């Protein structure tokens, strides 16, 4: 099967015909192409399946074989500057290939149903296939330029996909934000590439590290400059993987359709940054500062993402922040040098998060029919609740995903997260404490999402779901049971009104609109539903379970979530030391900072104690969440317990205040977006205004002033040369006088001397 290797460069281009054919088809035969919509979906899934089979085959070969490195064609510029395009398939690539294709196929399968009522069904599949192409191209790149090219294409696709529903102004702003924020990272990446080329004279990964090592060995390298370049390269990864300073685009990117959130913003595109850091790890590992910096950024992101996820109302935003936090874990692991753990977590997290997103898509789909087609309503967890009766399969799938993300043992994320936490203890205790406590927070916010969505009663039918009347029996606020939202209503000063962005959305909930259940295509017919008065209305409508195709994808992902942990379970099951651990076979422990003795099998006892510790933290988080968010009316004892807590006088006020501070921090996205708005956007706007002023007043002013001066000068001259003898005589006398004055001045001066 040498052919497979020879022609494996074709992998990224296999899904490419779909967008091209759809584009040409829509231009030339629009109606025919639209009528064949299912065929296009089938074609794109089929092509992606081919890629999957190929990549599975390649990675099986990869376990025993060294990597493939092939040169295909080049842009020759001159002898010392040529860009060679080729492809590199090593274990890293093959893992990414499998990940992208499996999640991609499931998401495409899912979105066939999810997008079936959408006008842009074909457009969606074209974008998705093009996205898959560029993502596959990114992971098979053999040099930095190629990475940069596909990196930008991925950014472009995500722009199109986030702005898929461009008629929604918020989506349009979100995609612009994503593109520009990613461009900031690309700027760093490009500069880093140029700098690295300047040092080493090569773009190829193969040569790059070798030359760099030689240079370092001979001590010929400007170390500061190299650090700077590495930092800039890392900046690219920061933007793509939504790490701390440039994370702002990720939650906004949730404006895109949910399958896109699942594919791009959970499984693949955000993994590109991790992939880049992993690919360049031989470079970063030379520079300890950068490694420390990476882990620092990672830990900040872990904590920030987790705290911001605490009080999101929108189910997808909550998940987006949790993605950010998990990506922080991966970055942390990379920064610590435990390459394997990072990749293990990347894989497990990708499947779990894709599952969660597809689950939330299913929820949104069922909610949309009842509350209306606005993300403010259909994704709002305040309006959900009690869905477990109505969408049981989705509920189970979502619960599995939640438990996996919390790190409950048999599920995938437990294994990887546990590994990262263990390694962090070896690296630095402070980081380890933060990482572990964030594991608790993860469990808390994930269960908050789960409980708000599935437990209790369906909240659409209760009037005061916004939690303003805390005395009401059914009131459910976002933060526990009784949050006096006094701070939020105090819009006294300018800053706060800026900060509380979504404050006026409450008004729109009660607008007297009649929503029609859009039943086109779906076979079930429902009557009109008026949500004018929730209290007087007796005929409630309840959400329904999604269709089979959507559920099928979710079930497959549930299976993945259960069993994908097997690839990297870090100890030998039998005494002969035969590893079941496929991952370590793939990722040879060539880079391993924390475990100097390359004995991969971890001691049972040590493992169990660590596991018990992390699981207990997770359970603690779950307990707190269920204590706060488990609806009151489900258990009366809980109410009594709560009352006993709440009647503690001054302590309670203090507790509320702390809670409010955390709530506001989280709800307003840590004020980071606002800070950017105030500092960067306003600053640049001010600068642009200043430049406008310069342009109009100063530079045009010079020209205009020149014109005006010459005009007045001419006007003045006009009066001199009017032809009157007397004025000529006057001038004549004046100049003679001046001449005489000067002459006499010099003459007398000379006399003195």
């Amino acid at each position, binding site marked *: 099967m040498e052919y497979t290797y020879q022609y494996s460069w074709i992998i990224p281009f296999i899904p490419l015909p779909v967008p091209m054919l759809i584009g040409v088809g829509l231009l030339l035969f629009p109606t025919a192409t639209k009528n064949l919509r299912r065929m296009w979906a089938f074609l794109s899934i089929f092509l992606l399946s081919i890629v999957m089979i190929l990549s599975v085959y390649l990675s099986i070969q990869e376990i025993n074989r060294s990597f493939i490195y092939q040169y295909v064609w080049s842009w020759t510029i*001159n002898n010392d500057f040529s860009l060679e395009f080729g492809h590199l398939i090593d274990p890293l690539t093959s893992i990414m290939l499998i990940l992208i294709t499996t999640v991609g196929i499931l998401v495409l399968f899912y979105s066939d149903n999810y997008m079936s009522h959408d006008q842009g069904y074909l457009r969606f599949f074209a974008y998705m296939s093009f996205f898959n192409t560029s993502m596959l191209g990114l992971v098979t790149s053999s040099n930095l330029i190629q990475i940069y090219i596909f990196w930008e294409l991925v950014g472009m696709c995500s722009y199109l996909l986030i702005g898929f529903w461009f008629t929604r102004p918020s989506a349009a702003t979100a*995609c612009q934000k994503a593109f520009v924020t990613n461009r900031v990272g690309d*700027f760093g990446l490009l500069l880093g590439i*140029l*700098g690295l080329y300047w040092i080493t004279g090569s773009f190829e990964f193969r040569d790059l590290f070798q030359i760099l090592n030689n240079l370092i060995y001979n001590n010929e390298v400007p170390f500061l400059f190299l650090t700077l370049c590495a930092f800039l390269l890392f900046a690219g990864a920061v933007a793509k993987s939504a790490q701390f300073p440039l994370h702002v685009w990720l939650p906004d990117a949730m404006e895109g359709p949910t399958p896109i959130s699942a594919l791009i913003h959970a499984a693949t595109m955000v993994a590109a940054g991790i992939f880049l850091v992993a690919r360049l790890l031989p470079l970063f590992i030379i520079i300890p500062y950068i490694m420390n910096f990476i882990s620092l950024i990672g830990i900040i992101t872990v904590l920030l993402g987790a705290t911001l996820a605490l009080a999101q109302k929108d189910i997808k935003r909550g998940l987006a922040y949790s993605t950010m936090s998990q990506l922080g874990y991966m970055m942390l692991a990379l920064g610590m040098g435990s390459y394997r753990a990072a990749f293990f977590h990347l894989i497990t997290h990708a499947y779990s998060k894709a599952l969660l997103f597809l689950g939330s898509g299913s929820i949104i789909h069922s909610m949309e029919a009842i509350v209306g087609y606005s993300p403010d309503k259909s994704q709002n967890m305040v309006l959900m609740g009690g869905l477990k009766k109505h969408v049981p399969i989705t509920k189970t799938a979502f619960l599995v995903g939640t438990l996996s993300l919390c790190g409950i043992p048999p599920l995938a994320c437990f294994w990887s997260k546990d590994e990262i936490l263990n390694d962090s203890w070896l690296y630095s205790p402070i980081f380890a404490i933060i990482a572990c406590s964030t594991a608790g927070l993860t469990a808390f916010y994930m269960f908050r999402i789960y409980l708000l969505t599935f437990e209790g009663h369906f909240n659409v039918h209760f009037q005061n779901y916004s939690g303003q009347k805390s005395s009401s029996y059914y009131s459910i606020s976002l933060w526990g049971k009784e949050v006096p939202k006094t701070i939020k209503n105090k819009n006294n000063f300018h800053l706060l009104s800026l900060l509380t962005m979504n404050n006026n959305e409450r008004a729109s909930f009660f607008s007297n609109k009649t929503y029609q259940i859009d039943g086109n295509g779906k076979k079930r017919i429902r009557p009109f539903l008026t949500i004018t008065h929730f209290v007087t209305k007796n005929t409630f409508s309840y959400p329904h379970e999604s269709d089979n195709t959507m559920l099928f994808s979710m079930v497959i992902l549930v299976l993945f979530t259960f069993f994908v942990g097997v690839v990297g379970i870090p100890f030998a099951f039998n005494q002969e030391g035969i590893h079941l651990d496929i991952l370590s076979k793939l990722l040879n422990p060539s880079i391993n900072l924390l475990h100097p003795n390359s004995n991969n099998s971890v001691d049972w006892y040590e493992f169990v104690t660590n596991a018990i510790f992390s699981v207990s933290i997770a359970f603690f988080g779950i307990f707190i969440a269920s204590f706060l968010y488990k609806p009151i009316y489900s258990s009366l004892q809980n109410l009594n317990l709560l009352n006993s807590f709440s009647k503690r006088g001054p302590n309670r006020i203090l507790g509320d205040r702390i809670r409010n501070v955390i709530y506001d921090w989280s709800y307003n996205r840590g004020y980071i977006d606002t800070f950017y708005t105030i500092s960067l956007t306003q600053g640049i706007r001010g600068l*642009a205004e200043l430049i406008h002023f310069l342009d109009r007043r100063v530079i045009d002013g010079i*020209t205009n002033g020149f014109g005006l001066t010459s005009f007045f000068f001419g006007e003045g001259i006009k009066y001199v040369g009017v032809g009157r003898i007397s004025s000529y005589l006057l001038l004549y006398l004046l100049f003679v006088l001046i001449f005489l004055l000067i002459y006499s001045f010099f003459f007398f001066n000379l006399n003195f001397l």
Partner: protein
Amino acid sequence: MLLLLLLLTPLIGIFLISTTVENSNTSLTLNRIKFIGLSSSIINLFISLIIFILFNFSSSEFQFVQEHHAISSFDFYLETLLLAVFLVLDILLFYIFFESILPPLFILIGLFGSSNRVRASFYLFLYTLLGSLFLLLSILTMSSIMGSTDFDALYKTNFNFYTQLFLFIGGSIVLAAIVLKLSLYGILRLILPLLPKAQYCSTSVIYVIGVITIIYASLSTLRTIDVKELIAYSSVSHAAVYLLGVFSNCIQGIEGGIVLGLGHGFVSSGLFVCAGGILYDRSSTRLITYYRGIAQLMPVFSILFFILCLGNAGTPLTLNFVGEFMSLYGVFEKHALLGALASSSIIFSAAYTIYMFNRIAFGGSYSKFFVVNLPDVNKREFIILLTLVLFTVIFGIYPSVILDGLHYSVSSLIY
């Protein structure tokens, strides 16, 4: 022979048009004029392509291909003159043709411009003449030293340093100011071969000016709400990038500058067709604030517009990316810090281009300001835009076609 044909074709076009204009102004004659205009432009393009193919790349000269979709006879005049400038080999003739571009431009802007046209045409005239003054002075100096104004003779001379510096200042003022592609050509033709010493030692000054121009023009671009103004300002910032590339004194930078100039020529003319020819034609406004959700009404237009915007932002697989990357590489190799600052154009260009596209094509449902429906592109517009898009993308994927032809002549420009 071919060169003469190249110059004569637009002139014949002018002659034919000016004879037909005498007749009554029916739609038939108008069509005939358009036909003559288009066909002579196309013939011209073909002649230039033939020259391009027949050209011996191993000699150190190169011709540019300029394409204009002409409508009036003045435009033709302009085209003839542009071609003349690109072809002449005598510096005085260069100057003469250079200056004679002004009257037709002046008349074109003054007659067919929009609200502020008189002011604009005056500005153009004054600024250009101001620059030309210096160019003329430098040419006079050169001819007084050498006694000749022929390029071949001038190339062989080696002026001393201070003369070079003086001439350099004179020359670069004019060239940086005017018709952007022309300035690129002027730099390649005049400054780099004639004045290498001055060019070499004043690079840092040029670079500082260039970087300031990039940032200044980008910020100006960010705040404009007029589509055409936005594209024009972005041209300024791109021009600064390729000028920096050309002055980088390395093959990559110079080639990158030329490629970016070419790519930018395709992309910005495409964007101007989009903004002025299509959007303004249909909606009679150029302000971004009035546009919204065009993608709903004009999907085909939006696709082409999007690709052109990506080209303007320098996304990979467009010719602009190749040019921008190579120019920036040249700048970076010459001066790392200024190169880094110049690279900020990546962020800025993305910001303003995406802002423009986002506001016009996305950004909510169809704007309430428009009462009438906007039809999608018709065949003519589609073919114009598609040509430009295809050029941008094909050369972007495989730029070797252009680059291979440039190696030899560029390597003679390096000091």
